[in-house]
Protein backbone atom coordinates (compact mmCIF):
# COMPACT_ATOMS: atom_id res chain seq x y z
CA UNK A 1 0.00 0.00 0.00
CA UNK A 2 1.43 3.42 -0.95
CA UNK A 3 2.99 5.39 1.88
CA UNK A 4 2.63 9.09 2.55
CA UNK A 5 4.33 11.54 4.86
CA UNK A 6 2.56 14.14 6.97
CA UNK A 7 3.26 16.42 9.91
CA UNK A 8 1.31 16.21 13.15
CA UNK A 9 2.14 18.77 15.85
CA UNK A 10 5.49 19.58 14.19
CA UNK A 11 6.56 15.93 13.99
CA UNK A 12 6.93 14.04 10.72
CA UNK A 13 5.12 10.71 10.39
CA UNK A 14 4.80 8.24 7.59
CA UNK A 15 1.50 6.47 7.13
CA UNK A 16 -0.42 4.27 4.75
CA UNK A 17 -2.56 6.06 2.23
CA UNK A 18 -6.27 5.69 3.07
CA UNK A 19 -5.63 6.03 6.81
CA UNK A 20 -7.52 8.74 8.67
CA UNK A 21 -5.73 11.44 10.63
CA UNK A 22 -7.17 9.92 13.81
CA UNK A 23 -5.77 6.46 13.07
CA UNK A 24 -2.32 7.83 12.37
CA UNK A 25 -2.36 10.03 15.46
CA UNK A 26 -3.40 7.11 17.67
CA UNK A 27 -0.76 4.80 16.20
CA UNK A 28 1.82 7.34 17.30
CA UNK A 29 0.40 8.08 20.72
CA UNK A 30 -1.08 11.49 19.89
CA UNK A 31 -4.26 11.69 21.94
CA UNK A 32 -7.21 13.26 20.09
CA UNK A 33 -10.44 13.17 22.12
CA UNK A 34 -13.38 11.35 20.49
CA UNK A 35 -16.93 10.47 21.48
CA UNK A 36 -19.01 9.18 18.57
CA UNK A 37 -16.11 7.28 17.08
CA UNK A 38 -15.63 3.64 17.97
CA UNK A 39 -12.86 1.53 16.44
CA UNK A 40 -14.41 -1.01 14.08
CA UNK A 41 -17.62 0.92 13.42
CA UNK A 42 -17.90 3.10 10.37
CA UNK A 43 -16.77 6.61 11.29
CA UNK A 44 -19.55 9.16 11.27
CA UNK A 45 -18.05 12.55 12.09
CA UNK A 46 -20.97 13.44 14.32
CA UNK A 47 -19.72 14.74 17.65
CA UNK A 48 -16.88 16.97 16.35
CA UNK A 49 -14.74 16.30 19.43
CA UNK A 50 -11.89 15.13 17.18
CA UNK A 51 -11.61 18.43 15.29
CA UNK A 52 -8.06 19.25 14.14
CA UNK A 53 -6.57 22.14 12.19
CA UNK A 54 -5.05 21.66 8.75
CA UNK A 55 -2.59 24.16 7.39
CA UNK A 56 -4.26 26.00 4.51
CA UNK A 57 -7.79 24.96 5.48
CA UNK A 58 -10.09 27.78 6.60
CA UNK A 59 -11.90 25.64 9.17
CA UNK A 60 -11.08 22.65 11.38
CA UNK A 61 -11.91 19.13 10.16
CA UNK A 62 -12.94 15.97 12.07
CA UNK A 63 -9.91 13.68 12.31
CA UNK A 64 -12.02 10.50 12.42
CA UNK A 65 -13.36 10.90 8.87
CA UNK A 66 -10.58 12.90 7.23
CA UNK A 67 -8.10 10.87 5.23
CA UNK A 68 -4.48 11.86 5.51
CA UNK A 69 -2.76 13.18 2.40
CA UNK A 70 0.83 13.68 1.37
CA UNK A 71 2.37 16.77 2.96
CA UNK A 72 -0.56 17.53 5.27
CA UNK A 73 0.28 19.72 8.27
CA UNK A 74 -2.00 18.91 11.21
CA UNK A 75 -2.41 20.61 14.61
CA UNK A 76 -4.36 18.66 17.21
CA UNK A 77 -4.28 20.90 20.30
CA UNK A 78 -4.33 24.64 19.56
CA UNK A 79 -5.97 26.95 22.13
CA UNK A 80 -8.90 27.33 19.76
CA UNK A 81 -9.42 23.56 19.39
CA UNK A 82 -9.18 23.01 23.13
CA UNK A 83 -11.82 25.69 23.67
CA UNK A 84 -14.10 24.24 20.95
CA UNK A 85 -13.91 20.79 22.52
CA UNK A 86 -14.80 22.17 25.94
CA UNK A 87 -17.75 24.03 24.47
CA UNK A 88 -18.99 20.92 22.64
CA UNK A 89 -19.02 18.82 25.80
CA UNK A 90 -20.56 21.63 27.86
CA UNK A 91 -23.34 21.89 25.26
CA UNK A 92 -23.95 18.14 25.52
CA UNK A 93 -24.17 18.41 29.29
CA UNK A 94 -26.59 21.35 29.02
CA UNK A 95 -28.82 19.88 26.33
CA UNK A 96 -30.13 16.77 28.06
CA UNK A 97 -30.19 16.01 31.77
CA UNK A 98 -26.91 14.65 33.08
CA UNK A 99 -27.39 14.22 36.80
CA UNK A 100 -24.36 11.98 37.32
CA UNK A 101 -25.02 11.50 41.03
CA UNK A 102 -28.18 9.49 40.32
CA UNK A 103 -27.18 7.91 37.00
CA UNK A 104 -26.69 4.18 36.37
CA UNK A 105 -23.43 5.00 34.58
CA UNK A 106 -21.90 7.19 37.31
CA UNK A 107 -18.12 6.71 37.50
CA UNK A 108 -18.08 4.48 34.41
CA UNK A 109 -19.16 7.01 31.83
CA UNK A 110 -17.27 8.20 28.76
CA UNK A 111 -18.99 11.59 28.77
CA UNK A 112 -18.31 12.19 32.45
CA UNK A 113 -14.65 11.20 32.01
CA UNK A 114 -14.31 13.32 28.89
CA UNK A 115 -15.64 16.40 30.71
CA UNK A 116 -13.09 15.93 33.51
CA UNK A 117 -10.30 15.33 31.03
CA UNK A 118 -11.09 18.50 29.10
CA UNK A 119 -11.01 20.55 32.31
CA UNK A 120 -14.75 21.15 32.58
CA UNK A 121 -15.63 21.89 36.21
CA UNK A 122 -18.80 23.85 35.39
CA UNK A 123 -21.04 24.45 32.38
CA UNK A 124 -21.26 27.98 30.99
CA UNK A 125 -24.54 27.44 29.13
CA UNK A 126 -28.08 27.37 30.49
CA UNK A 127 -29.37 23.86 31.16
CA UNK A 128 -32.40 23.04 29.02
CA UNK A 129 -34.05 20.78 31.62
CA UNK A 130 -35.97 18.85 28.99
CA UNK A 131 -38.17 16.11 30.30
CA UNK A 132 -37.64 13.34 27.80
CA UNK A 133 -39.22 9.91 28.01
CA UNK A 134 -37.59 6.65 28.96
CA UNK A 135 -38.33 3.42 27.14
CA UNK A 136 -38.25 0.55 29.61
CA UNK A 137 -40.57 -1.67 27.60
CA UNK A 138 -37.88 -4.20 26.65
CA UNK A 139 -37.44 -7.07 29.06
CA UNK A 140 -33.70 -6.84 29.73
CA UNK A 141 -32.65 -3.37 28.61
CA UNK A 142 -33.83 0.23 28.88
CA UNK A 143 -33.24 3.51 27.03
CA UNK A 144 -33.16 6.87 28.82
CA UNK A 145 -33.22 9.68 26.24
CA UNK A 146 -32.19 12.13 28.96
CA UNK A 147 -28.66 10.68 28.90
CA UNK A 148 -28.29 10.21 25.12
CA UNK A 149 -25.60 12.18 23.27
CA UNK A 150 -26.72 11.04 19.80
CA UNK A 151 -23.39 9.41 19.05
CA UNK A 152 -25.30 6.75 17.06
CA UNK A 153 -22.99 3.93 18.08
CA UNK A 154 -26.17 1.95 18.83
CA UNK A 155 -27.53 2.53 15.33
CA UNK A 156 -24.26 1.55 13.70
CA UNK A 157 -23.41 -1.55 15.74
CA UNK A 158 -26.93 -2.95 15.47
CA UNK A 159 -26.93 -2.51 11.71
CA UNK A 160 -23.36 -3.38 10.77
CA UNK A 161 -22.43 -6.01 13.34
CA UNK A 162 -25.66 -7.60 14.56
CA UNK A 163 -27.39 -7.11 11.21
CA UNK A 164 -30.72 -6.33 12.87
CA UNK A 165 -30.96 -2.57 12.14
CA UNK A 166 -33.37 -1.97 14.98
CA UNK A 167 -32.32 1.64 15.63
CA UNK A 168 -32.79 4.74 13.50
CA UNK A 169 -32.95 8.46 14.21
CA UNK A 170 -36.11 10.52 14.18
CA UNK A 171 -36.20 14.34 14.05
CA UNK A 172 -33.45 16.89 13.47
CA UNK A 173 -30.88 18.76 15.52
CA UNK A 174 -31.52 18.83 19.23
CA UNK A 175 -34.96 17.24 18.77
CA UNK A 176 -33.40 14.07 17.33
CA UNK A 177 -34.15 10.80 19.10
CA UNK A 178 -32.98 7.29 18.49
CA UNK A 179 -36.01 5.12 17.77
CA UNK A 180 -36.54 1.36 17.56
CA UNK A 181 -38.36 -0.24 14.60
CA UNK A 182 -39.26 3.09 13.02
CA UNK A 183 -40.53 4.62 16.27
CA UNK A 184 -42.23 1.93 18.24
CA UNK A 185 -41.61 0.96 21.87
CA UNK A 186 -38.42 -1.11 22.02
CA UNK A 187 -40.38 -3.82 23.80
CA UNK A 188 -42.53 -4.41 20.73
CA UNK A 189 -39.56 -4.50 18.35
CA UNK A 190 -39.48 -7.65 16.25
CA UNK A 191 -36.09 -6.91 14.69
CA UNK A 192 -34.16 -6.71 17.99
CA UNK A 193 -32.44 -9.96 18.95
CA UNK A 194 -31.63 -8.86 22.51
CA UNK A 195 -27.93 -9.26 21.76
CA UNK A 196 -27.03 -6.25 23.91
CA UNK A 197 -24.39 -4.86 21.54
CA UNK A 198 -25.96 -1.40 21.46
CA UNK A 199 -26.15 -1.34 25.26
CA UNK A 200 -22.50 -2.24 25.68
CA UNK A 201 -21.17 0.26 23.13
CA UNK A 202 -23.30 3.17 24.33
CA UNK A 203 -20.84 5.62 25.93
CA UNK A 204 -23.30 6.96 28.51
CA UNK A 205 -26.11 5.81 30.77
CA UNK A 206 -28.63 6.13 27.92
CA UNK A 207 -28.70 2.39 27.18
CA UNK A 208 -28.38 0.12 30.18
CA UNK A 209 -29.27 -3.24 31.61
CA UNK A 210 -32.40 -3.27 33.72
CA UNK A 211 -31.78 -3.86 37.38
CA UNK A 212 -28.72 -1.60 37.47
CA UNK A 213 -29.07 1.20 39.99
CA UNK A 214 -26.86 4.27 40.56
CA UNK A 215 -23.30 3.68 39.40
CA UNK A 216 -23.86 -0.04 38.78
CA UNK A 217 -23.78 -0.10 34.99
CA UNK A 218 -20.42 -1.09 33.56
CA UNK A 219 -20.10 -1.60 29.84
CA UNK A 220 -18.75 -5.04 28.94
CA UNK A 221 -17.20 -4.91 25.48
CA UNK A 222 -14.66 -7.70 25.31
CA UNK A 223 -17.03 -10.03 23.42
CA UNK A 224 -16.97 -7.49 20.58
CA UNK A 225 -13.18 -7.01 20.45
CA UNK A 226 -12.39 -9.52 17.75
CA UNK A 227 -15.17 -8.68 15.35
CA UNK A 228 -14.55 -4.94 15.70
CA UNK A 229 -10.80 -5.38 15.20
CA UNK A 230 -11.48 -7.42 12.06
CA UNK A 231 -13.75 -4.69 10.76
CA UNK A 232 -11.21 -2.00 11.58
CA UNK A 233 -8.48 -3.77 9.63
CA UNK A 234 -10.80 -4.62 6.74
CA UNK A 235 -11.60 -0.93 6.36
CA UNK A 236 -7.86 -0.41 5.71
CA UNK A 237 -7.73 -3.38 3.31
CA UNK A 238 -5.94 -5.57 5.87
CA UNK A 239 -6.89 -8.72 7.76
CA UNK A 240 -6.31 -10.21 11.21
Amino acid sequence: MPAITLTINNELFSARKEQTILEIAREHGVDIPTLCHFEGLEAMGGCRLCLVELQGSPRPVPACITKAAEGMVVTTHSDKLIEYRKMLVELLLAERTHTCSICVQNNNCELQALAAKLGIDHVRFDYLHQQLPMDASRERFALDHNRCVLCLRCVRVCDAVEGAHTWDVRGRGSTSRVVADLDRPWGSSTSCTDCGKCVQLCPTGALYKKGATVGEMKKERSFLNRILERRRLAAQGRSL
Partner: protein
Amino acid sequence: MSKLRLATAWLGGCSGCHMSLLDLGELLVELADRIELVYGPLVDAKQFPEQVDLALIEGAVANLENLELLQQIRRNSRLLVSFGDCAITGNVTSLRNVFKVDDLLTSVYQAGPGSLPRSGEDGDVLPELLPRVLPLHQVVEVDAFIPGCPPDPERILAAITAVLNGEPVMLGEDQRTFG
Protein backbone atom coordinates in the same frame (compact mmCIF):
# COMPACT_ATOMS: atom_id res chain seq x y z
CA MET B 1 0.28 35.01 60.47
CA SER B 2 -3.43 35.77 60.62
CA LYS B 3 -5.81 32.88 60.12
CA LEU B 4 -7.81 32.33 56.94
CA ARG B 5 -11.40 33.38 57.58
CA LEU B 6 -13.50 30.50 56.23
CA ALA B 7 -17.28 30.57 55.88
CA THR B 8 -19.52 27.78 54.64
CA ALA B 9 -23.17 27.98 53.64
CA TRP B 10 -25.90 25.49 52.92
CA LEU B 11 -28.34 26.56 50.19
CA GLY B 12 -30.50 24.11 48.19
CA GLY B 13 -28.62 20.90 48.93
CA CYS B 14 -28.81 17.87 51.20
CA SER B 15 -25.92 18.79 53.54
CA GLY B 16 -23.89 15.90 52.15
CA CYS B 17 -21.10 18.28 51.13
CA HIS B 18 -20.84 19.52 54.71
CA MET B 19 -20.76 15.89 55.92
CA SER B 20 -17.88 15.30 53.52
CA LEU B 21 -16.11 18.35 54.99
CA LEU B 22 -16.51 16.82 58.45
CA ASP B 23 -15.09 13.60 57.02
CA LEU B 24 -11.72 15.35 56.90
CA GLY B 25 -11.66 14.15 60.52
CA GLU B 26 -8.38 14.74 62.34
CA LEU B 27 -7.12 16.89 59.50
CA LEU B 28 -9.66 19.48 60.62
CA VAL B 29 -7.80 19.77 63.92
CA GLU B 30 -4.58 20.48 62.04
CA LEU B 31 -6.32 22.98 59.78
CA ALA B 32 -7.72 24.76 62.85
CA ASP B 33 -4.26 26.29 63.41
CA ARG B 34 -4.49 28.11 60.11
CA ILE B 35 -8.24 28.59 59.67
CA GLU B 36 -10.97 30.35 61.58
CA LEU B 37 -14.48 29.12 60.81
CA VAL B 38 -16.59 32.28 60.96
CA TYR B 39 -19.97 31.25 59.55
CA GLY B 40 -21.97 28.21 58.48
CA PRO B 41 -24.21 25.37 59.67
CA LEU B 42 -21.32 24.11 61.83
CA VAL B 43 -21.00 27.36 63.86
CA ASP B 44 -23.40 29.64 65.69
CA ALA B 45 -23.05 33.02 63.88
CA LYS B 46 -26.44 34.49 62.90
CA GLN B 47 -25.23 37.08 60.37
CA PHE B 48 -22.89 36.44 57.48
CA PRO B 49 -19.74 38.32 58.56
CA GLU B 50 -17.62 40.88 56.69
CA GLN B 51 -14.19 40.21 55.19
CA VAL B 52 -14.41 36.51 54.65
CA ASP B 53 -11.40 35.07 52.82
CA LEU B 54 -12.95 31.87 51.53
CA ALA B 55 -16.63 30.92 51.24
CA LEU B 56 -17.53 27.29 50.41
CA ILE B 57 -21.14 27.26 49.25
CA GLU B 58 -23.08 24.01 49.13
CA GLY B 59 -26.37 23.74 47.26
CA ALA B 60 -28.12 25.43 44.36
CA VAL B 61 -30.09 28.68 44.40
CA ALA B 62 -33.65 27.43 44.86
CA ASN B 63 -35.51 30.20 46.70
CA LEU B 64 -35.40 33.92 47.55
CA GLU B 65 -33.58 33.32 50.82
CA ASN B 66 -30.81 31.39 48.99
CA LEU B 67 -30.58 34.22 46.47
CA GLU B 68 -30.25 37.01 49.03
CA LEU B 69 -27.76 35.11 51.17
CA LEU B 70 -25.63 34.26 48.13
CA GLN B 71 -25.52 37.91 47.05
CA GLN B 72 -24.45 38.93 50.54
CA ILE B 73 -21.80 36.20 50.59
CA ARG B 74 -20.43 37.49 47.31
CA ARG B 75 -20.21 41.06 48.63
CA ASN B 76 -18.42 39.96 51.79
CA SER B 77 -16.05 37.29 50.46
CA ARG B 78 -12.75 37.44 48.65
CA LEU B 79 -13.06 33.91 47.17
CA LEU B 80 -16.38 32.21 46.55
CA VAL B 81 -16.28 28.51 45.74
CA SER B 82 -19.12 26.35 44.38
CA PHE B 83 -18.92 23.39 46.70
CA GLY B 84 -20.40 20.19 45.23
CA ASP B 85 -22.60 19.32 42.25
CA CYS B 86 -25.79 21.07 43.44
CA ALA B 87 -23.92 24.37 43.61
CA ILE B 88 -22.22 23.74 40.26
CA THR B 89 -24.89 22.10 38.09
CA GLY B 90 -28.13 22.29 40.08
CA ASN B 91 -27.88 18.49 40.36
CA VAL B 92 -30.75 16.82 42.22
CA THR B 93 -32.13 20.13 43.47
CA SER B 94 -32.76 21.26 39.89
CA LEU B 95 -34.70 18.14 38.88
CA ARG B 96 -37.83 20.12 39.75
CA ASN B 97 -37.07 22.53 36.88
CA VAL B 98 -39.14 20.41 34.51
CA PHE B 99 -42.24 21.61 36.44
CA LYS B 100 -43.71 25.07 36.85
CA VAL B 101 -43.51 26.12 40.50
CA ASP B 102 -47.31 26.17 40.93
CA ASP B 103 -47.68 22.72 39.41
CA LEU B 104 -44.91 21.48 41.63
CA LEU B 105 -46.52 22.66 44.87
CA THR B 106 -49.91 21.40 43.73
CA SER B 107 -48.68 17.97 42.76
CA VAL B 108 -46.62 17.52 45.92
CA TYR B 109 -48.89 19.10 48.55
CA GLN B 110 -52.43 19.12 47.19
CA ALA B 111 -52.54 15.96 45.14
CA GLY B 112 -50.19 14.34 47.68
CA PRO B 113 -50.72 13.98 51.44
CA GLY B 114 -50.53 17.00 53.79
CA SER B 115 -51.38 20.66 53.23
CA LEU B 116 -49.72 23.34 51.12
CA PRO B 117 -47.08 25.27 53.11
CA ARG B 118 -47.60 29.04 53.13
CA SER B 119 -45.03 31.01 51.17
CA GLY B 120 -44.59 34.23 49.23
CA GLU B 121 -46.31 36.55 51.74
CA ASP B 122 -45.27 38.31 54.95
CA GLY B 123 -44.79 36.08 57.96
CA ASP B 124 -44.62 32.96 55.87
CA VAL B 125 -42.92 29.79 56.95
CA LEU B 126 -41.19 29.04 53.66
CA PRO B 127 -39.18 31.41 51.47
CA GLU B 128 -40.65 31.88 48.02
CA LEU B 129 -39.39 29.38 45.44
CA LEU B 130 -37.64 30.77 42.35
CA PRO B 131 -39.16 29.76 38.99
CA ARG B 132 -36.02 27.74 38.26
CA VAL B 133 -33.27 26.32 40.43
CA LEU B 134 -29.97 27.90 39.34
CA PRO B 135 -26.29 26.97 39.70
CA LEU B 136 -24.37 29.60 41.69
CA HIS B 137 -22.34 30.87 38.74
CA GLN B 138 -25.55 31.90 36.97
CA VAL B 139 -26.29 34.27 39.87
CA VAL B 140 -22.93 35.61 41.07
CA GLU B 141 -19.31 35.41 39.97
CA VAL B 142 -17.73 32.18 41.20
CA ASP B 143 -13.97 31.84 41.68
CA ALA B 144 -13.56 28.05 41.78
CA PHE B 145 -15.46 24.78 41.66
CA ILE B 146 -15.24 21.56 43.69
CA PRO B 147 -17.31 18.97 41.79
CA GLY B 148 -18.68 15.78 43.33
CA CYS B 149 -21.85 14.53 44.99
CA PRO B 150 -20.54 14.88 47.57
CA PRO B 151 -16.95 15.92 46.79
CA ASP B 152 -14.46 13.55 48.45
CA PRO B 153 -12.70 15.02 51.49
CA GLU B 154 -9.46 14.89 49.43
CA ARG B 155 -10.95 17.32 46.91
CA ILE B 156 -12.00 19.70 49.66
CA LEU B 157 -8.57 19.49 51.26
CA ALA B 158 -6.86 20.13 47.91
CA ALA B 159 -8.97 23.26 47.40
CA ILE B 160 -8.45 24.63 50.91
CA THR B 161 -4.72 23.87 50.79
CA ALA B 162 -4.38 25.75 47.51
CA VAL B 163 -6.04 28.81 49.02
CA LEU B 164 -3.88 28.58 52.16
CA ASN B 165 -0.81 28.52 49.91
CA GLY B 166 -2.04 31.49 47.92
CA GLU B 167 -2.41 29.37 44.78
CA PRO B 168 -5.38 29.18 42.40
CA VAL B 169 -7.80 26.29 43.06
CA MET B 170 -7.27 23.93 40.11
CA LEU B 171 -8.28 20.36 40.84
CA GLY B 172 -6.66 17.59 38.77
CA GLU B 173 -8.52 15.45 36.24
CA ASP B 174 -9.40 12.68 38.71
CA GLN B 175 -10.65 15.24 41.23
CA ARG B 176 -13.02 17.17 39.02
CA THR B 177 -15.54 14.54 37.88
CA PHE B 178 -19.20 15.33 38.50
CA GLY B 179 -21.23 12.76 40.39
